[in-house]
């Protein structure tokens, strides 16, 4: 069968796969296509609602000499102001971020005190009778700043003599992480050739379409009621309680639909300000931030990936040494997780006997950086996958063959304490290359070309580690006398289809149609811990907790059936959504009704991930999340313009719980990957963030994405999640930049090593414009 026919057959197969999955429609989409879905801005006002606006620093680094808010406070309609001189004795320092492997100290006040350390740092919050008044009041606050020299480069920040951003620390180094196995010195001695490669990734912004930091905050009678778009409501309750000195049970967080997050949706400084003001003025406070404010809440870590790679003459990798410099911005935020994730992913997916990875994370005057879709891994995969391609070509080996030879095979262990490799990369690569009608061989670059258009193809592999740590996850299932099952949990619906996933798992476990399952919105009053929708955790941990809650609900139903209809519990079983004993069978509803029309049965389900221990960098993981991708591109060598003609990615999902949703996640990762590969960079110059608005920051649009985008999944039902699933939502995004970068080399014989890959950089690499 020719490759084209093979691809057509695959696409046919994919279509029938979707049809054969006989899936119900994703449960949240009816609300989303009719405008009925409620996001934070759409929740109705509480009685007595007030509206808050924020004053942000225009400087990236400055000392605050004085703040005068007296004019603002005299403006009619202004109800309260908070800044460093209006704290009523509250310690403004936000709780230290928690990480299972690092001891972190608190370094960020919710409002600036002595200094501002980034463009956009919160200086004051004003609550007023209406938003217009709040915005006017903010403009009336006078702040006397003494500008200080800003630092926008983490390597410079670590150099001797650099200005220190947090004086009490005495250094801009936040933390270091190391990962080692074998003896890297010996490895390089044994190597026949040694290569050095450097790749960089800039700061980028998550840019969820719903701005970051909206809320409705009510703090009365020592109790907090907060509605906010956040990815981890249960964790947030602990932090908020700690900050205000409350019992965690006195903090209730509810989460409506969330308009995208990608790691950015957290409890912001301004939300702490809104809570403070709500207590002070004894009225609820609403925040509705603008796109500019949203841009200054969060970002992705810029990173420098520097690798030294030793290879034997037969093409076997012998040693790898990586130095990473991670730029966390002005405060710790996600520094620990990102640095750790970068360190433990910097080796790619290869069998390398001697490895030494050293990561340093530094403060700069950028917007603090946090978790971002495939945290830390987007940057390291850009590094290792370009480096592997480059080394293969310098060795005169086809990159595909080089990867086949060196990629870990199923059952192999990378190092002590890791799960065994649980995928077949050669199969993923075969499918990814075939999907773009490519035999996997390099073009003969460097040959004279008939036109100034050059085409090339490249590939990349990805090995996202599966969900890691996070503690126990809980879900609760109830069933009422109508037989309606409701699942309670603290899993926000942030776009991936988490509530649909919960619904599918509950329905399948109980053997009932999805239409009989309701999924609640997160509400921490239910006291159901969950670390939140991040780190590919939801399918694995919440999925298992819901499955367990469903199993326990069956047992509860069986106990009640035996009590009401006779026999021993062990004589009863649940078959296709009915309770059966011998030849008698009852619906769930019939059994619950025996307790009366208002009866409800309940069960709790839980799941515990493997423990995270300091001794093992990979602890807490229970599977890998691999994928392979291939790209075909065309470069206009006169203008440097790049077009991606085809892109394919094959992810190992174990089992897609809802195939169409999972496929959309794989595709969505690719689309965001296009932005990160080709356009996106938060630019700092002359002390300021230059492009902090949607209008100034280029995001991917439909026309950027080739029609020939082929996203598919391997389903061997070999994962540890429900029905053999694996976490898979972050594995595609990381492949995009290196697959495109390698395709560019294939086309024109030069490499762009600094993201994003712009026309200017391509022309520079071609030597058509100066450095």
């Amino acid at each position, binding site marked *: 069968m020719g490759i084209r026919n093979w691809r057509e057959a695959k696409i046919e197969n994919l279509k029938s796969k979707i049809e054969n999955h006989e899936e119900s429609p994703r449960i949240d989409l009816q609300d989303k296509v009719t405008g009925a879905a409620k996001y934070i801005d759409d929740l109705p006002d509480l009685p007595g609602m007030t509206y808050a606006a924020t004053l942000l620093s225009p400087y990236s680094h400055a000392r605050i000499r004085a703040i005068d808010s007296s004019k603002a406070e005299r403006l009619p309609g202004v109800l309260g102001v908070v800044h460093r001189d209006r704290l009523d004795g509250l310690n403004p320092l936000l709780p230290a971020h928690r990480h299972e492997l690092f001891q972190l100290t608190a370094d960020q006040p919710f409002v600036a005190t002595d200094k501002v350390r980034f463009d956009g740092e919160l200086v004051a919050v004003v609550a007023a009778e209406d938003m217009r008044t709040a915005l006017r009041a903010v403009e009336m606050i006078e702040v006397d700043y003494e500008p200080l020299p800003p630092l926008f480069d983490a390597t410079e920040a670590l150099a001797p003599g650099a200005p220190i951003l947090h004086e009490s620390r005495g250094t801009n180094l936040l933390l270091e992480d190391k990962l080692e196995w074998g003896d890297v010195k010996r490895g390089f001695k044994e190597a026949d050739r040694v290569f050095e490669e450097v790749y960089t990734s800039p700061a980028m912004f998550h840019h969820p379409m719903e701005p970051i930091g909206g809320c409705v905050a009510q703090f009365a009678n020592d109790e907090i009621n907060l509605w906010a778009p956040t990815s981890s409501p249960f964790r947030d309750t602990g932090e908020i309680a700690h900050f205000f000195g409350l019992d965690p049970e006195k903090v209730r967080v509810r989460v409506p639909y969330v308009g*995208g997050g990608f790691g950015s949706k957290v409890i912001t400084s301004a939300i702490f300000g809104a809570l403070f003001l709500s207590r002070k003025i004894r009225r609820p406070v609403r925040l509705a931030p603008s796109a500019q404010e949203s841009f200054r809440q969060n970002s992705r870590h810029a990173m420098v990936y520097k690798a030294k790679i030793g290879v034997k003459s037969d093409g076997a990798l012998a040693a790898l040494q990586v130095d990473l410099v991670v730029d966390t911005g002005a405060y710790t935020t996600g520094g620990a997780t990102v640095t750790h994730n970068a360190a433990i992913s910097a080796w790619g997916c290869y069998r390398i006997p001697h490895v030494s990875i050293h990561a340093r994370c530094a403060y700069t005057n950028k917007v603090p950086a946090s978790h971002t879709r495939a945290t830390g891994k987007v940057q390291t995969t850009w590094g290792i996958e370009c480096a592997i391609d480059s080394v293969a070509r310098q060795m005169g080996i086809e990159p595909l063959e080089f990867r086949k030879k060196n990629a870990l095979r199923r059952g192999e262990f990378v190092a002590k304490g890791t799960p065994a490799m649980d995928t077949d990369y050669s199969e993923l690569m075969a499918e990814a290359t075939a999907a773009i009608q490519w035999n996997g061989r390099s073009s003969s670059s460097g040959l004279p070309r008939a036109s100034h258009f050059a085409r090339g193809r490249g590939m990349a592999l990805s090995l996202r580690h599966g969900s890691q740590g996070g503690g126990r996850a809980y879900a609760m299932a109830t069933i009422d006398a109508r037989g309606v099952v409701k699942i309670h949990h603290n899993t926000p619906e942030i776009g991936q289809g988490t509530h649909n996933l919960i619904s599918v798992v509950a329905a399948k476990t109980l053997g009932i149609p999805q239409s009989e399952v309701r999924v609640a919105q997160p509400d921490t009053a239910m006291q159901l811990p969950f670390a939140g929708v991040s780190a590919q955790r939801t399918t694995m941990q919440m999925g298992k907790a819901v499955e367990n809650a469903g199993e326990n609900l069956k047992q509860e139903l069986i106990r009640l059936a035996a009590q009401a209809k006779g026999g021993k519990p062990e004589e009863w079983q649940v078959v296709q959504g009915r309770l059966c004993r011998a030849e008698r069978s009852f619906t769930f509803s019939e059994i619950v009704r025996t307790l009366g029309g208002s009866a409800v049965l309940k069960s709790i389900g839980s799941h515990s991930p493997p423990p995270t221990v300091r001794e093992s960098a990979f602890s807490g993981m229970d599977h890998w999340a691999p994928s392979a991708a291939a790209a075909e591109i065309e470069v206009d060598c006169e203008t440097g313009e790049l077009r991606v003609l085809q892109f394919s990615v094959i992810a190992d999902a174990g089992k897609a719980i809802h195939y169409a949703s999972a496929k959309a*996640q794989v595709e969505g990762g690719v689309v965001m990957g296009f932005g990160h590969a080709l356009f996106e960079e938060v630019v700092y110059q002359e002390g300021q963030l230059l492009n902090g608005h*949607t209008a100034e920051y280029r995001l991917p649009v439909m026309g950027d994405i080739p029609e020939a985008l082929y996203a598919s999944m391997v389903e061997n039902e070999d994962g540890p999640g429900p029905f053999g699933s694996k976490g898979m939502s972050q594995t595609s995004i990381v492949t995009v930049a290196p697959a495109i970068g390698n395709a560019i080399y294939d086309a024109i014989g030069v490499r762009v090593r600094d993201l994003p890959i712009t026309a200017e950089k391509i022309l520079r690499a071609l030597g058509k414009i100066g450095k």
Partner: protein
Amino acid sequence: MQDELDTSQTFALSVTVNGRPWSGDVPVEETLIEFLRGRLGLTGTKRSCEAQVCGACTVLVDRRPISSCSYLTFEANGKSVLTIEGLAIGEQLDPLQAAFIRNIGAQCGYCTPGQIMAAKALLLENPSPTREQIAHWLRGNICRCGAYPGIAAAILEASREKR
């Protein structure tokens, strides 16, 4: 300077929204998104960039797509406004809405009302667009979740259904 802005000026507006007439006084500086969300409670139209760039607030005014964040309410006087809430007829979804569900043309859903309204305007003007025409028409509707393949498929499917 906002201090000088005369906020007392109002405009006597008559407008049709989702087929229903509405008359009353509105401040001259009120944007259409404020009017729809604040006065009529039609919160399906979403606020995002507030600069006519992202397309989340797209609604139709006399069958043409506009960014309601940058359109003053009084400009709609005597015109007909269609929002996401006005697309379905009772329980009967518009073919576009149904196709968006089938093709996962929405993920977080925040840009979705704008995507669907922009697509509606396209199909009113061009009932059988190519994928390229769809991509060109929707270049001002950003989906950060990256549901573009699903959105494109949904619009193509809905256009075929209508024919």
